[in-house]
């Protein structure tokens, strides 16, 4: 039986906007194809696991307070995380998880919270806490076999700069920065994004991209049998129609 080993980090602290749903969706899509989805959890202060032994590492989004709580713990994981990334583990990062992998995060009070520095981007929160990017968002991405319009929900104060390889182009909403044109960060083994929703609920192509990558990483055959995504696709098309007036 093919299997994927997954580590969900800080599930008890970083779980806003149904972000844990992404795990449930991946698990569901694996189960439908007879793939064993082995999900483990890591909480702040736990013994450090061997991060490179996982095919997928997932970090969700959290409120500012929780994010501060875990940032120190995350620094403890820095070397392990770099090793895992370089050895090809897939990093799936939402919102706070996305920001913390960059160079730094400067909060609304001007405090600079160092990131893990895996990537070159950095995030700056506007001085006013009221200025946030909130709402439905549509981005167009080319990471799947065909270009797809991905729908999600964003709510972030931080503005992320210096993203060289974004996940997609913004068709509706804000993305990395208010008034900017790009959203998220992408490498073949990294999806970092502001999209909640949870993101995978209406975008099965993205979920399958990750599953395929993880299967290959685990040394298994990556081919996936198609499953019935009629509900998911209809769900997305209803929102696209509304948001893009298509």
């Amino acid at each position, binding site marked *: 039986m093919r299997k994927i080993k997954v580590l969900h980090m800080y599930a008890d602290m970083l779980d806003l*906007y*149904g*972000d844990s749903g992404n795990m449930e969706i991946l698990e569901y899509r694996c189960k439908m194809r007879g793939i064993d989805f082995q999900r483990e959890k890591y909480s702040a202060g736990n013994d450090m696991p061997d991060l490179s032994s996982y095919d997928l590492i997932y970090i969700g989004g959290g409120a500012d307070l929780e994010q501060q709580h875990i940032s120190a713990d995350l620094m403890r994981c820095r070397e392990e995380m770099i090793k895992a990334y370089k050895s090809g583990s897939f990093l799936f990062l939402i919102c706070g998880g996305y920001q913390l992998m960059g160079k730094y995060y400067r909060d609304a009070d001007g405090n600079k919270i160092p990131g893990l520095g895996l990537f070159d981007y950095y995030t700056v929160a506007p001085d006013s806490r009221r200025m946030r990017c*909130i709402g439905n968002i549509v981005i167009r991405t080319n990471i799947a076999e065909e270009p797809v319009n991905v729908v999600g*929900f964003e709510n972030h104060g931080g503005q992320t700069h210096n993203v060289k390889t974004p996940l997609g182009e913004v068709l509706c909403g804000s993305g990395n920065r208010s008034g900017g044109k790009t959203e998220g960060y992408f490498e073949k083994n990294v999806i970092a994004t502001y999209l909640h929703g949870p993101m995978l*609920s209406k975008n099965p192509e993205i979920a399958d991209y990750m599953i395929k990558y993880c299967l290959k990483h685990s040394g298994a055959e990556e081919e996936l049998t198609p499953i019935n995504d009629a*509900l998911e696709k209809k769900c997305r098309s209803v929102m696209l129609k509304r948001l893009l007036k298509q």
Partner: protein
Amino acid sequence: MKRILILIGKIIVKLLRMMKRNAGNLPGIVIWHLSGHKCCSIFKVECPVIAITGTNGKTSVTNCIAKLFESSGKRLIINKEGNNLDTGICSLLLRHCDMSGRVNADLMILETDESHVPVVYSQMKLETLVVLDFFRDQLDRNGEMETLIRKIEGFCKTFSGNLILNGDDPNTARLGRANPDNKNVKYFHAEKYAFATSEIYEASEGRFCPFCGEALSYEYYQYSHIGKFSCEKCGFGTDYEPYVTASDIDLEKHIFTVDGHQYTPRLNSIYNVYNMTAVAAVAKLYNIDRKITEKVISRYTVKNGRMEHFMLGSCQTTLNLAKNPVGANMTLRVMNEMNGEKELLFVLNDNIADGLDVSWIWDINFSIFRDVTRVVTAGTRAYDIAVRIKCSGYDARKIAVRPELDDAVRELASTPGRKFVIANYTAVQPTRAALKRYIAEHGGMSDEKN
């Protein structure tokens, strides 16, 4: 100046009434602007005020507490329709004051939005504050829950009136420590019921001690994070005796006991037991006659889509509002705790008042479905809730998506058997209307007894 504002407010109320418009909020909004954002400060309130706040249950508890005092001959002011912001309360008082702003009442019982407690009661004296619970609710509107709790904590620091707290919710119980000099802090508590669990069952808040950061330990969870908790490190949760305790809770027999007195509520859920225990605490505090309390607790049911009963043709149907995961999880529990097959209609909207974001449905635990033979979904986000239920492992072939409400109700009624309907905030009234339309056309009954 205050007199002028009162006059302006009263004229607006009059005009709206003449135009047959609801004066529930608009007069208050105008006064809010004219008064430098202190729209409740223009009144002279000399009577005691009881305020009820919390994420879930405010309306029910407010109405029940009002009923406790109804036969006392006191002149009451109650915001029954749930206009619970400062502007709504201002609009209400404009209708009940004289031209000098003096409020004509012997007692006010006010449901108050969580974030507005400090706003309203820094402008008028509060005698008793009842805090029911704090759950995730519309994060994109309310901001983070911790921010909200801290606001109320700030208020409680200088509040020395009666503070009635849910002692089984760490998020509300912590308010009891805000003002160490306040001797009037009282907690209500409910003993373990049959469906309590030893593990947490639904997404929740408040897993860590607010005072020392240690993970809280639980003897049992009643639902979500409500239960017998304690902090092993600093003793939070063990440092108070409950003022009233609900014991011998038996939902099958519809009974529970408070202070040696048995009650038989018509609404039957652990959720209602907590609400009614809060009501019993207020009754005890104000020395209400036992018989009156018993009558209120045992007769209380609600219309307005809160555990409301219908006969849809020949099908017994229960409609419940769920504006957040806890409310939805509660309905699912009530549904599961009932034997036999049943069907569910879930109506999900994403209008502005709902919060545009619907991801909270992923915090609902659907994997517990027991004997649910079919699901119908409706509303502006009918497909989102369908996908959510499907990914919990429920057979997609048993899910019918009918975005239009009348279609959905017809679909639901197309098979015999027990039905449950869950609708979120802006969906609940249209859903009631659709159920009633079906009943008018095809027969059945709406529960109008109360």
